């Protein structure tokens, strides 16, 4: 298992940065790069950066990386990094569908414990795309596979607590809307929706997500 994790982490970090590819589709087929800065709410208040590279082909794809971190006094003690591939199905009558599988790596540190988590996600969008703007419904499932837990304060309070790698501790669904508007090579994207626990009963304390991104393509 450790070898698997090492392999995954090596692959993940071979990409130089991370972020979120929002509204990748655009009639401008010459642009291959898209970068975005974003701020939003996603299990806390977060900000981040994303980069995507579009490959051509019968069914083109965008390989994207994302990095987001919560606001707070300690920079990057917590973060979520993603590596994903978004398949592109060209719109018919301006309607388009995409599927985006990806891997997730999270780190968390606080007085209570340090967590390293590996997960995966599968997202899809169904949208209406015009030359300058788009709007789409999105759905996403985020599943945790393994978490390394190193306890701090919690170990002081409970000395028999076990540090180490744990199996899946849950997952969550997101359902929402996203929209974008492009002005030449610069765009803005908005997304918002509801978060559900995978059992649709144990939802997070902040059961909503929202994000605003400023995008640049070239």
């Amino acid at each position, binding site marked *: *298992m*450790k070898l*698997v994790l090492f*392999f*995954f982490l090596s*692959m993940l970090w071979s990409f130089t940065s991370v972020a979120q590819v929002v509204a990748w589709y655009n009639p401008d087929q010459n642009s291959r790069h898209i970068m975005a800065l974003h701020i939003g709410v*996603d*299990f*806390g*208040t*977060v900000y981040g950066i994303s980069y995507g590279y579009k490959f051509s082909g*019968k069914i083109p794809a965008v*390989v994207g990386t994302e990095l987001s971190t*919560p*606001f*707070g*006094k300690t920079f990057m003690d*917590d973060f*979520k990094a993603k*590596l*994903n*591939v978004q*398949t592109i199905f060209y719109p018919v009558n301006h309607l388009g569908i995409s599927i985006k*599988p*990806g*891997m997730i790596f999270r780190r*968390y540190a*606080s*007085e*209570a414990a340090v*967590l390293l988590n590996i*997960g*995966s996600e599968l997202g899809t969008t169904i949208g209406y795309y015009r030359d300058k703007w788009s709007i789409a419904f999105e759905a996403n499932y*985020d599943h*945790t*596979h*393994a978490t390394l*837990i190193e306890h701090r*304060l919690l170990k002081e*309070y*409970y000395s*028999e*607590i*076990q540090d*180490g*790698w*744990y*199996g*899946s*501790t*849950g*997952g*969550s669904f997101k359902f929402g809307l996203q929209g974008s508007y492009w002005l030449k090579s610069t765009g803005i994207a908005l997304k918002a929706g509801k978060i559900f*626990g*995978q*059992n649709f*009963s*144990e939802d*997070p304390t*902040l059961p909503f997500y929202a994000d605003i991104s400023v995008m640049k393509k070239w």
Partner: protein
Amino acid sequence: MKLVYIPLFLLGLSACNSDLMDPLTLGSLVPRTVDQDASLPSLVINGTHLHVETFGVPTDPIIVMIHGGPGGDYRDLLEARAFADDGFFVVFYDQRGTGLSKREDASQFDGVQIMIDDLNALVHHFKLADAQKVFLIGHSWGAMLATGYINQHPEKIDGVVLAEPGGFTWPQVEEYLSLSKHIELFSEALNDALFPEQIFTGRDEHEIQDYKASYFFTFENAPGNTIGNAGPYPFWRSGAVSFNAMLEVGETQGLDFTTHLADFSTRVLFTYSELNTAYGQAWAETVGSVFPHIEYHEIEGTGHEILYFGWDAFYAIALTYLNEMK
């Protein structure tokens, strides 16, 4: 396009989790409860299995210690063992479904009455003679529960020490919570509490919910917290199911512990902390005004967790009161 298969391949590999520990393994992330560990002191009572511990001579006047929360436990109240050396029989218990008491299904928390009935069962269990006096010491939610008990059974209680009850009616509780749970959206403390929820999420098992809830502990006691706590304090287990269920009870059913308090003529000791900026003398007098005979004391140098961070000052004042009422 073949790049699509890279994350799918990695996803499949990471799913090979045979070497991973199961988060539900007993005792791995949260302590065993009394039904899982026979060495813990316990009592089967009123249809549940409670973590119960006593100190002192059973025939001495009884003090029942009632912890806060809902969903907390009595670990932070243990300094009160000292009352046993002062001639009291001190009873600690983790409330139904909390601390090291047995986990119970959320359906059991269909009202505050079940918590009052548990307390009543304990009082009857430990009271050995009609003349044996019974005192209650309640902290925060525990002070509310003590008051709810007195509201129903005033004749059974010979004195009560209250430490910062949020309120005795639901509107009071809501008002106090709005002042005490000050949230800074972009703070490290808030995000330290919320971030782990994407890792521990959507699971029904109480153990995982309890473990996840423990990450909120540092938020409540982060530097600069409104309630004036100097930092975190020890606990055994956050009773997430009990907490959520009792909060829902308050929101859906409301509560009013004041309906018969005007008939409770016994003197009440009401303490509040110097450093809890959401509380103070004015709120103490607002909440406590329903008791006909009450005295107020500010406990200096502590925040809301009076019996932990302000024990020495609290102990002196409470012991004086208890000896006078004994």
